[in-house]
């Protein structure tokens, strides 16, 4: 083997510590580069795959295509996959509510034909039932559940056997929609909602109407998140059937994919293939996918990832270049004599360079593949750990469990080859300068005794000589002397020597300090980012409530409030039986105008929150003669929860649990979260009486808005008119309020029952058992009845907000007073569950069956309360993992660099130290000198790093402007401490190593070593 290769191998072996350190640097930088670009590729790919899952892999869609158009397109060689959806037309319908001015269309289309290519279109996620299997079966959107639509006006085009539910039938006479506009005849597609004029009349018409056809509803598809977005109609409802040839399609939509097209011009070309014809076909591009595929005119979204990737890589490479450069520079410096000797024996410059580059090549051959493999493994691990967070970011809340997608990392050959190339070049660059220096190693300089090349010292002196004028030099000298004396006085010779050593021109030392600073900066920045994100997550205690279900219950004809409440209770049991949930309780939240007796209300309740936050306007609540006038919230909770609550407060059950004589608890625990701080609103200073306004006089075309003090100091009700000027009408309270109910407030508490929803209120809130609702309602109803009769007689239109005037009255909506009289009771059920997601689904299903009967249950939904917290935590974890890994590894590189520099600088000065020892310096002084030097590196590295970090944070705040300022992007103390620790650690190990190496052995041997 060539002697120079042997030399290179031996050199690496002999200086194994430095070899290992350099190797670590190469491995770590290869690891990071691999991780960075693999992540970039994976994320880019993820965007594509998630878009395909949501909306299919098609790239161009041809709408209004005839069969000829379809055949023609399929014959186009550019098309590699396709799916065809038949469109059968529309039926128009009027919503079930009379005269609410609401019309809609129902469009019918097919699933893609059999033998279509997979994934060109997304699959449909069913909420209930199954997919249609013939052209008499349909699936409908779940949001239609329980509703009934009137027949198509003007034409008998639409029929329902029942409200929309699985098993019901629907009859439709499908046609094309068209209208005349400015003399032009235009066909309307699903992007157009039903066209009406200002009077509310429908201005479009249905033509080419096919005979009435009956369909059976066999399933329902839901629209959670972005699920099924593709299949739904933007301005109406989309029914889907099976294409067995039983219905004549009006036209088809052909979706195609062209895998071979690589530029956006080519895709555009494909889209415009019908331009020459004068046919009906129009083409749409799947922009959401094409963007991620880089096939649109704009810069692809992945470009952003790549930009960030390159930026991060730049940092990594800078760090590793300095490490490797330093290593080799040190190595060369140590071997100057050896190299000089080789040169004098006859080694050519090229041969010496080869020796150095061979060392680099060995490190590269071992380090780069190792780093790449580790990079792939660690990327896999990082993605696996942060999978939840990523999915949540991509698909939104609820994605973690709904999607079966897992994140597969993408490793492509071009990337790996690219990394190998970049690393090789970096390695070459790092060693080039030292190698050239090695070859230039003059045998003469090498063979001389003193190793400190005088040239550099002379050079420095020359440079400073040129810069400073003489008087400045004089001052400089004087100052330097003073400092020297101070050093001597303070720390003795050790410190003086340390300072002199540090003052030597030391480019390698500066590089080490710089890489230390960069890693400190990265640690602090990562910490600031993570700290900011954690602040943003509003983690509010859920008090053991994992799931909430909302249900609206419409009172039926001849049903009493007591009946209503009994059903509400039964529903609670039904929901528990249908799932594995435990019922915590249920509540109903009602807001009423009213007043609190003198001294009850705490006038300073809102002071702090108004002063320190922007949540509220600065209007003061209305307090007249120490009595509060305004909104009073009532939280009605189920009787069991109420009883337990009363017991927990140590109150007398007899007093508080008398349904006929309700006694309330005043709630002083309301709070708002702002800027990471909690503001509590203590509305009550004393117990007292709450007077609820159960019946407020209606004024035509207006609604009550506030109670203010009149000029005479008496309270008056303000009504806002629904006109352009927002005119305000004022009535004294005695005139406006027709009915009241007084509720004594027996006690004040800071807590509310767990099932009480919405405890973040500003106005005073009292808590009552739900049985009290029946009592109050029954007391209020006679007054409401008579007032309503008067208003009707007086011709007052009920555009006024009826429920606001009469919050405790429940009337069946069929009472001939229009939609404004539909005020169902809104109930919130609170559940606990070990498996919230699953339980939520079970509850949803049960609620859905109830929603089939919208007349009784107009609205219902179940909501996983823990979901958003889990999602946010998952996202933060992902961010932590990625930033943590990046910062951590960069830190390792910096540590290696600094260790290398410091330890070697001491080793190189072994002889100097021997001389010092020989003239009498003891171990203690020696140690002090070394520690002092190391401390200087520490301080400089830490200081520079912190400055860099603060500058970066400041810059980010400046750029981001108001967006980030809300949650203060503050300095993360824990991370700064961590950075300081890192610095101390690296210095500790360097110092220990250096001490060991430089104090080992005989003084004489060290002195002689050099001479032999």
């Amino acid at each position, binding site marked *: 083997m060539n002697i120079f290769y042997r*030399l290179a191998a*031996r050199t690496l072996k*002999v200086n194994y510590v430095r070899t290992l350190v350099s190797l670590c640097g190469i491995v770590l930088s290869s690891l990071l580069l691999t991780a960075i670009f693999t992540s970039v590729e994976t994320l880019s790919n993820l965007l594509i795959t998630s878009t395909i899952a949501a909306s299919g892999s098609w790239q161009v869609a041809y709408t209004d295509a005839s069969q000829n158009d379809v055949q023609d397109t399929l014959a186009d060689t550019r098309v590699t996959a396709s799916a065809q959806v038949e469109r059968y037309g529309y039926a128009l319908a009027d919503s079930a509510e009379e005269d609410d001015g609401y019309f809609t269309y129902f469009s019918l289309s097919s699933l893609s034909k059999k033998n279509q290519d997979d994934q060109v279109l997304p699959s449909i996620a069913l909420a209930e039932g199954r997919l249609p299997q013939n052209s008499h079966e349909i699936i409908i959107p779940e949001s239609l559940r329980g509703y009934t639509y009137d027949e198509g006006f003007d034409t008998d085009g639409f029929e329902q056997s029942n409200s929309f539910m699985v098993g019901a039938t629907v009859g439709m006479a499908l046609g094309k929609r068209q209208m005349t506009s400015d003399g032009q005849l235009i066909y309307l597609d699903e992007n157009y909602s039903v066209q009406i004029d200002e009077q509310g009349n429908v201005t479009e018409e249905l033509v080419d109407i096919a005979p009435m056809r009956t369909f059976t509803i066999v399933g329902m598809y839901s629209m959670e998140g972005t699920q099924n977005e593709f299949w739904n109609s933007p301005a109406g409802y989309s029914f889907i059937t099976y294409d067995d040839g039983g219905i004549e399609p009006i036209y088809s939509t052909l979706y195609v994919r062209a895998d071979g097209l690589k530029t956006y011009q080519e895709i555009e070309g494909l889209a415009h293939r019908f331009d020459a014809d004068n046919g009906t076909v129009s083409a749409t591009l799947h922009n959401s996918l094409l963007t991620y595929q880089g096939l649109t005119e704009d810069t692809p979204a992945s470009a952003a990832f790549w930009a960030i990737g390159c930026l991060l890589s730049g940092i990594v490479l800078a760090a590793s270049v300095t490490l490797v450069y330093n290593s080799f520079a040190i190595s060369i410096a140590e071997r100057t004599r*050896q190299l000089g000797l*080789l*040169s004098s024996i006859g080694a050519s410059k090229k041969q010496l360079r080869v020796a150095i580059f061979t060392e680099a090549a060995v490190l590269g051959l071992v380090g780069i593949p190792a780093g790449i493999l580790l990079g792939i493994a660690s990327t896999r691990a990082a993605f696996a750990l942060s999978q939840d967070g990523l999915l949540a970011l991509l698909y939104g809340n609820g994605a973690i469990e709904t999607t079966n997608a897992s994140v597969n990392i993408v490793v492509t050959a071009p990337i790996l080859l690219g990394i190998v190339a970049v690393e090789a070049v970096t390695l070459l660059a790092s060693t080039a300068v030292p190698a050239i220096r090695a070859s230039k190693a003059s*045998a*003469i300089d090498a*063979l001389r005794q003193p190793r400190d090349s005088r040239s550099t010292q002379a050079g420095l002196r020359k440079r400073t000589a040129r810069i400073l004028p003489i008087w400045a030099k004089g001052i400089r000298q004087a100052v330097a002397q003073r400092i020297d004396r101070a050093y001597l006085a303070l720390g003795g010779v050790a410190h003086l020597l340390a300072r002199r050593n540090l003052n030597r021109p030391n480019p390698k030392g500066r590089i080490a300090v710089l890489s230390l600073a960069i890693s400190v900066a990265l640690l602090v920045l990562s910490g600031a980012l993570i700290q900011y994100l954690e602040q943003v997550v509003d983690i509010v205690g859920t008090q053991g409530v994992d799931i909430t279900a909302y249900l609206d219950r419409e009172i039926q004809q001849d049903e009493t409030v007591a009946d209503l409440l009994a059903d509400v209770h039964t529903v609670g049991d039904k929901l528990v039986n249908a799932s594995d949930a435990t019922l915590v309780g249920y509540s109903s939240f009602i807001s009423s105008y009213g007043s609190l007796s003198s001294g009850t209300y705490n006038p300073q309740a809102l002071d702090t929150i108004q002063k320190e936050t922007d949540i509220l306007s600065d209007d003061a609540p209305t307090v007249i003669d120490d009595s509060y006038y305004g909104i009073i919230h009532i939280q009605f909770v189920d009787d069991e929860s109420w009883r337990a609550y009363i017991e927990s407060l140590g109150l007398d059950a007899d007093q508080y649990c008398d349904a006929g004589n309700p006694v309330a608890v005043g709630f002083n625990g309301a709070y708002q979260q702002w800027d990471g701080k909690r503001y509590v609103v203590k509305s009550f200073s004393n117990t007292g009486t709450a007077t609820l306004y159960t019946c407020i006089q209606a004024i035509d075309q207006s609604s009550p808005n506030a109670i203010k003090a009149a000029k005479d100091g008496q309270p008056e009700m303000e009504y806002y008119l629904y006109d352009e000027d927002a005119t305000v009408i004022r009535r004294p309270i005695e005139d406006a309020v027709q009915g009241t109910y007084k509720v004594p407030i027996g006690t004040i508490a800071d807590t509310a029952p767990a099932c009480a929803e919405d405890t973040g209120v500003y106005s005073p809130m009292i808590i009552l058992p739900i049985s009290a609702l029946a009592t109050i309602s029954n007391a209020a109803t006679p007054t409401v009845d008579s007032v309503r009769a008067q208003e009707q007689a007086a011709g007052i239109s009920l555009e006024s907000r009826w429920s606001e005037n009469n919050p405790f009255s429940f009337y069946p909506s069929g009472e001939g007073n229009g939609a404004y009289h539909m005020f169902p009771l809104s109930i919130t059920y609170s559940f606990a569950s070990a498996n919230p997601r699953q339980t939520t689904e079970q509850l949803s299903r049960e609620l859905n069956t109830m929603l089939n009967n919208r007349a009784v249950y107009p609205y219902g939904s179940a909501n996983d309360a823990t979901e958003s917290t889990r999602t946010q935590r998952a996202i933060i974890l992902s961010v932590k993992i990625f930033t943590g890994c990046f910062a951590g590894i960069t830190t390792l590189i910096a540590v290696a660099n600094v260790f290398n520099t410091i330890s070697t600088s001491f080793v190189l000065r072994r002889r100097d130290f021997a001389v010092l020892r020989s003239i009498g310096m003891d171990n203690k002084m020696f140690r002090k000198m070394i520690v002092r030097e190391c401390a200087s590196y520490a301080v400089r590295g830490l200081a520079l790093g912190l400055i860099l970090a603060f500058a970066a944070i400041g810059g980010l705040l400046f750029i981001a402007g108001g967006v980030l300022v809300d949650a203060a992007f503050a300095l993360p103390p824990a991370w700064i401490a961590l950075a300081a620790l890192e610095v101390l650690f690296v210095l500790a190990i360097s110092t220990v190593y250096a001490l060991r190496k430089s104090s080992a052995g005989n003084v004489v041997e060290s002195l002689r070593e050099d*001479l032999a």
Partner: protein
Amino acid sequence: MSILSVEHLTKIYGDGDTAVRALDDVSFTVEAGEFIAIVGSSGSGKSTLLHIIGGVDRPTSGSVYVQGQDIYQRSDEQIAVFRRREVGLIYQFYNLIPILDVVENMTLPVLMDGRQVNQDHLEQLIRALGLSGREHYMPSQLSGGQQQRVAVGRALMNSPAIVLADEPTGNLDGKNSAEVMHLLRDSNKRLKQTLIVITHDEDIALMADRVIAIEDGRLVSDSHQG
């Protein structure tokens, strides 16, 4: 043809006020097989002269002809080759590469050339140098005298035109000194190896055929001895 011819050799270090004339217009010739001792006080320029002859340091002006060839008319590459093949250098200190063993150190010039080592020649040398059995020792395992003998072996390995030695025994005790000088003399007498030795040692100077004295960079005397 003289094996070595030095003509008007001048070497100046530094510039301006700090210029040092290490060599000042030195000229002489050496015939093949001669044993020359160069003497002079410290700082007189002896080492500089040796380095220039050995192709290690370029002169400021003047020429060096080895075997009729002006060595400084060549490229750096060629000079390196010249050093490998036509010159053998021995120093007072630090002669060996610490991470190569005895044989590797000795055969270094051959290996650098990429040529095959003549095993017989190597064995002979090792025997002659008294290093049998220590072929694979590292320099740290050898005494000062042994290290110097390896250096001698390296110098002789390629059978160069000239062997240049700068105080080869300066760091050795009496016995080792004698041994090293014996080897050098032997190669000079038997193999007709041209030998130029810088020395302070009178005894060594007496061994030589010719003594050249350098003082303040100038050749002050060049006397043949009997």
